[in-house]
């Protein structure tokens, strides 16, 4: 479980996050949604430790990572997996080598065991046949799946996804969403997904926070979201005619 308490972050005069607090539970797909510039990426970076918040606490199973020593910080990072917006696969390595990479760096297992684990992860994301290809030979969706395989290679306790559906067609987006959701429940990990994708919101949002102007404007789940009366949330989610009609039907 990850808890954030009164997280504030300023860049000069700009207040990007204003005392944001929430709890992200194990085995649930937690979504952070909001318009561009609402502070989603900054919040995710504060949670994973790529940015230091000005105020507040980030608790990983009760441990405040902001108070961690350098060594503790390195250790907690080995419990994290992250899926980046553009997959961020290492282009000098094959798909299999990418998945093997965290195992090679941090695992004491034998080479055969590491290989077996990497191949298992690739099979889990239905990418076993592409293991010897290089990342640029893969489609956008396949790259994301390879990045998920790499993220789960070390059996992380926490999974973070930054806009996993950006640049993907709706069908591939659904596959990625389902994969993230299945992995979260299967391994009982704490997953936080940063997204603007409406399909993700109604499909996998076990817990959703809506950020607006650095504040949590609304909090709930996929069942509540269609019936919310929050104007800012509705303006954001149902911005297109099609989605407005869906809302009216609901």
């Amino acid at each position, binding site marked *: 479980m990850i808890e954030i308490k009164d997280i504030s972050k300023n860049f000069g005069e700009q207040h990007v996050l204003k005392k944001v607090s929430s709890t992200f539970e194990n085995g649930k797909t937690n979504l952070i949604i909001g318009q561009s510039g609402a502070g989603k990426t900054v919040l995710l970076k504060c949670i*994973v430790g*790529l940015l230091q918040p000005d105020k507040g606490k980030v608790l990983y199973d009760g441990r405040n990572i902001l108070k961690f020593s350098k060594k503790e*910080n*390195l*250790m*907690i*990072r*080995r419990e*994290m997996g*992250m899926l*980046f*917006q*553009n997959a*961020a*696969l*290492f*282009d*000098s390595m094959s798909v299999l080598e990418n998945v093997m*990479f*965290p195992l*090679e*760096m*941090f695992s004491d297992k034998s080479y055969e065991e590491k290989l077996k684990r990497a191949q298992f992860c690739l099979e889990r994301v239905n990418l076993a046949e592409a293991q010897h290809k290089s990342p640029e030979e893969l489609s956008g969706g396949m790259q994301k799946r390879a990045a998920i395989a790499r993220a789960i290679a070390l059996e992380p306790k926490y999974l*973070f996804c930054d806009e996993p559906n950006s640049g993907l067609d709706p069908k591939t987006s659904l596959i990625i969403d389902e994969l993230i959701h299945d992995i979260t429940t299967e391994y009982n990990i704490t997953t936080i997904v940063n997204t603007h994708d409406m399909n993700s919101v109604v499909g996998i949002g076990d817990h959703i926070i809506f950020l607006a102007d650095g504040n949590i404007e609304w909090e709930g789940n996929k069942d509540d979201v269609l019936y919310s009366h929050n104007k800012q949330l509705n303006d954001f989610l149902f911005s297109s005619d099609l989605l407005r009609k869906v809302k009216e039907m609901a």
Partner: protein
Amino acid sequence: MIITKSISTFGKYLMLMHRVFARPESIKMFFRQFMRELYKLGVDSIPIVLLISFFIGAVICIQMKLNIESAWMPKFVVGYATREILILEFSSSMMCLILSGKVGSNITSEIGTMRVTQQIDALEIMGVNSANFLIFPKVTALIFMIPILVIFSIAAGIAGSYAIGMFTGIMTPEDLTTGLQYEFSQWYIWCSIIKSLFFAFIISSVASFYGYNVEGGSIEVGKASTNSVVSCSALILFADIVLTQLLMQ
């Protein structure tokens, strides 16, 4: 303002180097990266080093013949002057200036692209010291390979001077050999190698620094590559003065 910015940049460079010179998390992975860099930065540079050195050796020989030749000078002076220029300046300093363009821009663009495509963030999230993992093998590989490149360059330059002597008949191989062997000091070769080690460190570390600190997109990667080559060249020239003064006194 410029002084403050320069001090701040130098401070950032030192902080990056502090992260680079740490114990690698996995010796096996470091060795794998080291071998890859050895090939990419060193072995891949051999053809250009041989090509440029061969032709420059030939040109130096022609220039010496045209400008030094007189009734008062022994014929072997051409070979002597060619050797001194190749060993003392061209094969160390000038070759490293050329390599700062080839190798330096390669390092900057590779690390810069990794930065803008979030590959460095991915390493950091995994708990890998990205500076050490990416930069340390490059610095060590180039320092390891540069003496070999310098020796190849000297050999190719001398071969070029022999070739021009033989094909154009401007001087006999015997005169050239006498000049090349005349008052030869082994220390000059060591000077050349010692200087090149410093230049290799400048090229690899400065180019990595520019790549590692890229912010933005592909345009910034291009700008960083250009700035890296300019900075490496200026620093090599400055270091050349200091090292020549220290080593040749």
